[in-house]
């Protein structure tokens, strides 16, 4: 097994242990939460207590904790995510489309945000003086201060008012009747607002960090010596400074993923984008713990995989880490 695969396996195992611990903790906590799906029913005076407990037993809510955990866990590993009492169906049926939607949104946002932040950050660090630089840093700060929540509401209201963009959702009513290309365009059209909001929230953060990482690299002794050697500035930037700054920049990807997913939750809820976010909120409102648990595990898995990808990338590009892992 070469170094990289050994690294991957080790990180995967670490992730699996983490997920297992999380699963047990969440499951146990969920059992101790007051109330369950049938609590509302119980409050209804027309429904007898016997009926409620009967319903409970039917759904398997009365067996002891460790048993239920094992059952749940083995089910999970077989792709059975439990039964959603709120949606009256297996959770597993609900998930794929939701995951895909969230993935689509976040992946697009990540690509666009990095596509903006990386060049802007580099350019900002390279040409430090000038009003354009101050303007872009000020603009980034201002954008940072505007919460995605507010931006989403504002943009959506504008869309509803002007009709230029759809007022929410993922597809229009005529979607199924469209041809393949038109369907693609339809979804893309609906993605404009949510992606814009996410990028507006993510790009400034990334840009600032890229800029900071580069500036710090520039102050390092080896950077100063390249200047003393008379190497042309652009070459220094791309062949010497950027590689050195890549480590913190790539680590940034993993760190920002959690914030992105959280922002995405809100944006999805506001714009009606059918991703994991709205599903989660509905599940919580309905106290549908099978669903809540599944989404919790999924979001953790999402984050873990993203971090793993970042670590892998880091391993490939940073020779120091490669050597250390040997």
């Amino acid at each position, binding site marked *: 097994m070469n170094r990289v695969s050994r690294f991957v396996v080790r990180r995967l195992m670490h992730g699996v242990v983490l997920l297992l611990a999380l699963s047990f903790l969440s499951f146990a906590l969920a059992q101790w939460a007051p109330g369950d799906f049938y609590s509302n029913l119980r409050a209804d005076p027309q429904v007898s207590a016997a009926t409620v407990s009967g319903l409970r037993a039917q759904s398997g809510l009365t067996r002891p904790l460790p048993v239920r955990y094992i059952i749940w866990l083995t089910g999970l590993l077989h792709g059975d995510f439990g039964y959603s009492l709120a949606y009256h169906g297996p959770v597993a049926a609900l998930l794929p489309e939701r995951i895909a939607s969230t993935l689509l949104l976040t992946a697009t946002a990540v690509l666009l945000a990095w596509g903006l932040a990386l060049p802007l950050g580099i350019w900002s660090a390279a040409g430090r003086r000038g009003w354009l630089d101050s303007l872009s840093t000020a603009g980034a700060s201002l954008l940072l201060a505007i919460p995605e929540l507010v931006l989403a509401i504002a943009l959506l*209201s504008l869309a509803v008012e002007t009709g230029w963009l759809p007022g929410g959702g993922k597809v229009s009513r005529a979607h199924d009747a469209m041809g393949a290309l038109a369907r693609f365009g339809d979804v893309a059209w609906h993605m404009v607002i949510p992606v814009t909001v996410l990028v507006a929230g993510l790009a400034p953060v990334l840009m600032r960090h890229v800029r900071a990482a580069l500036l710090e690299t520039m102050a390092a002794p080896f950077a100063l010596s390249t200047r003393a050697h008379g190497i042309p500035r652009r070459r220094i930037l791309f062949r010497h400074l950027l590689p050195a700054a890549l480590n913190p920049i790539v680590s940034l990807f993993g760190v920002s993923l959690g*914030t992105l997913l959280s922002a995405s939750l809100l944006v999805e809820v506001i714009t009606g984008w059918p991703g994991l976010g709205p599903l989660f909120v509905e599940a919580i409102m309905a106290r549908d713990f099978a669903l809540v648990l599944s989404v919790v595990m999924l979001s953790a898995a999402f984050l873990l995989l993203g971090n793993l990808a970042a670590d892998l990338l880091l391993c490939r590009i940073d020779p120091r880490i490669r050597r250390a892992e040997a």
Partner: protein
Amino acid sequence: MTRRRRIAIALALLAVVHVAALLAGFLAPYPYAEQHRDRPYAPPGNGFLLGTDAYGRDVLSRVLYGARISLFAGLAATLVSLVLGLAAGIAAGYFGGWCDRLLMRGGELMMALPWLYLLLAVRALLPLDISPGAAFLLLAGIIGAAGWVRPARLVRGVVLSARERAFVQAARGFGAGHGYLIRRHLLPLTTSVVVTQATVLAPQYILAEVALSFLGLGVAEPVPSWGNMLAELRHFGALTSHAWMLAPALVLVPVLLMYLVISDTLLDTLNLRQGRGA
């Protein structure tokens, strides 16, 4: 503008907003729940400086009372996070061993979820129907408790390096016990980390409260929070025809901006003090 002045101005502006929020009872022209059914969605003017909402409630008053909830829930949560983070960071950094491992692993577990998912998950464990007072405390508690990990890690770093310094060893040589060393030598070294973390966390926690209340999982009607006020805008037509409903956001954004200015300036100062480039 010098760094000092920048921080002073931002702090002053923040102070104004916070004091106004505290004095909401005095400053607000109307009680937050008072409805004027005859004047729903009234535009600013005629005794309602910021207009009214769907139930004819004065938006300005609700913004003031809402500030009390949102701003101070954020601050309270920040306090919780910092206290927990300090305690955990010092314990982990100073005592090391299993204590360190346990805390860091536990922190890792908590960081495995995106923060909003974590918050919502914890919120899900608690009853949905709670009084506004309980909601406030609950929010401050869980938002703060969910965020102890980063300050703890930073404090731990400071303690780890400070623990080995010569003056700590010297004090130990004079017979100093753990309590003395922590109180007299290590704790003061954590102040810069704690202060910068406070300025970074407070705005995040204010946003967290707003998000939770927006989703209906925080403070509930009729008590206003900027979150549940913004939730009224989920009927998207409302915003364009009733722009004044965005008033909470118009106060929220400058507040967040001021916090940003302060934390940026502080970080700059710290970096310069440590000899790194700006």
